[in-house]
């Protein structure tokens, strides 16, 4: 186990774990434009699953379908062996899905701490009334959840910016705060939309380390969209390749790399 090369290790992980989410024949249209065309793939417990493809391939739309923001015209989503009925995004979040966004979607008017605390909103149940009077349960809950959030702050090494308004932070740190907010929800599946876009090498390395640590330490299942091929091939256990809304490849990084259709559609240029 210890000496296993990364590729073999991930193959093993992808093949044996139970399926957590299964997407069946998803089709999504905007008016006449077909964004996703009859795509099926599954996500297994504890794996890192990457979705790659050129710009406009429909990757972000796919993530939006998973998180319930777009409702596909056709297809089914199965979660933990049950068919997911049509749901609003906030209901999907309650199932244990958390995500980050391609263009950072933090709450700019709030501090880092408050942003991360919003990630725990489904863990906090005290009523409006008890919050208004700040008695018993409301205060206790606040303190308990704050302790959990502090663990994540430690984990992501952002202690020093805890009370800074998010609007003032540089790009790289914002991405990290966004990850922290998603982690605070203790998700079953973590969806990351280009977590490394626009970062320099050091920042990317940091982010890779955090993603791997999250996967290892908490056993969180991760679905990842990324353009940096090196990162994708190193990190992920299995990869879905999309092009023009279709799925053209699915498998371990090595299988995908060897897939002729993928090479011609996408990786071909890079291999020369």
């Amino acid at each position, binding site marked *: 186990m210890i000496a296993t090369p990364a590729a073999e290790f991930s193959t093993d992980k992808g093949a044996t774990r139970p399926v957590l989410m299964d997407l069946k024949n998803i089709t999504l249209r905007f008016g006449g434009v077909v964004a996703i065309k009859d795509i099926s793939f599954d996500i297994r417990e504890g794996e890192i699953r990457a979705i790659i493809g050129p710009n406009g391939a429909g990757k972000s739309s796919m993530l939006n379908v998973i*998180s319930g923001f777009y409702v596909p015209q056709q297809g089914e989503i199965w979660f933990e062996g049950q068919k997911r009925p049509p749901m609003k995004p*906030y209901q999907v*979040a309650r199932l244990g899905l958390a*995500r980050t966004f391609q263009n950072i979607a*933090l*709450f700019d008017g709030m501090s880092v701490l*408050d942003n991360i605390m*919003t990630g725990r909103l489904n863990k906090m149940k005290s009523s409006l009334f008890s919050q208004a009077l700040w008695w018993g349960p409301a*205060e206790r809950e606040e303190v308990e959840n704050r*302790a959990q959030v502090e663990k994540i702050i430690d984990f992501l090494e952002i202690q020093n910016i805890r009370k800074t308004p998010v609007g003032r932070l540089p790009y790289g740190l914002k991405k990290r705060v966004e990850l922290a907010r998603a982690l605070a929800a203790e998700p079953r599946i973590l969806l990351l939309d280009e977590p490394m876009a626009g970062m320099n090498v050091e920042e990317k390395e940091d982010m890779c380390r955090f993603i791997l640590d999250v996967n290892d330490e908490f056993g969180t299942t991760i679905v990842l969209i990324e353009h940096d091929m090196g990162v994708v091939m190193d990190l992920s256990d299995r990869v879905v390749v999309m092009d023009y809304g279709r799925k053209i490849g699915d498998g371990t990084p090595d299988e995908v790399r060897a897939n002729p259709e993928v090479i011609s559609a996408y990786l071909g240029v890079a291999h020369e």
Partner: protein
Amino acid sequence: MIYREAGDFKTSYRDDGQTFPIRLDRWGYYALLGVAFLVVPFVIDSYWANAVLVPFLIYAIAAIGLNILTGYAGQVSLGTGGFMAVGAYSVYKLMTAFPGVPIFVHILLAGAITAVVGMLFGLPSLRIKGFYLAVATLAAQFFLVWLFNKVPWFYNYSASGQINAPERTVFGWAVTGPATSAPAKYLTCLVFAVVLAWIARNLTRGMVGRKWMAIRDMDIAAEIIGVNPLTAKLSAFAVSSFFVGIAGALLFSVYLGAAEASEAFGINKSFLVLFMIIIGGLGSIFGSFAGAAFLVLLPVLLKNLLVVRLGWPTDLAAHLELMIVGGLIIFFLIVEPHGLARLWRLTKEKLRLWPFPH
């Protein structure tokens, strides 16, 4: 040096989340409360109560209410006047229908009724945003005022179309009606203002407040991370209208004593409260007080200066006031969109370093 936070360490998350994390702030606040409750009632005269302090406290409550909706939850409302009217007419109907029930209960119930009405008019916020919603709230403003003017049941079929507050007492002291003394008016409003400000502070530092702010800052992202927009927006409308309704009830029953819907609760009242939170600071409870104080004091000062000192006609002073308030709104939005509250915070940050600025 004197105003500082160094050495004021927090050893628990509970302490870290309190309202005034800096010790000096806390003392200052207790001192202020002490003066407000124990000194002012004994020295207040009817001019200070009627011209300054009572309207200040009532508008502060309304401003906190609107700030919850607009400053915290990001939903602009131009219907504040209409909702204040709901509070006023509710308390009037309750007072006249159940004379035996304590007036404080009536005022709270008036707030609750307004909360329900507010939620009703808040329903469109689920479909429409920004100034579409702002214009939609004008529907509440015009419809409600019309309703209270045209349906005689609301003003108990009185010939004048006005509502008049009957006398009600608390511990033997009249707090409504013509016989109410200045200290009684002031203390009644003070109790409501302090308790409601404390509630607003609790709500905005907890999870409800975070949900509101999340909706304000980025509604789509908020929904995806798990905020139910329905409950978040409607709770903001409900809580906000509760505050505004109580302000309306106090304005009518304790302060004015008599009211007529289109005069006391017209659209200019909506703008007045909106201006208070812009000048005071969007998303700040301190700002709600500061903005209310500013816009209550400004006409008093102008009147003293122009009418009393210079002997100018009152209508000219009123017109100049319009210009000044309008100009100030633009000035504040350009220079300091976060209002007086932000200026206060910046001053405190400077004070922290004073007298050694480096």
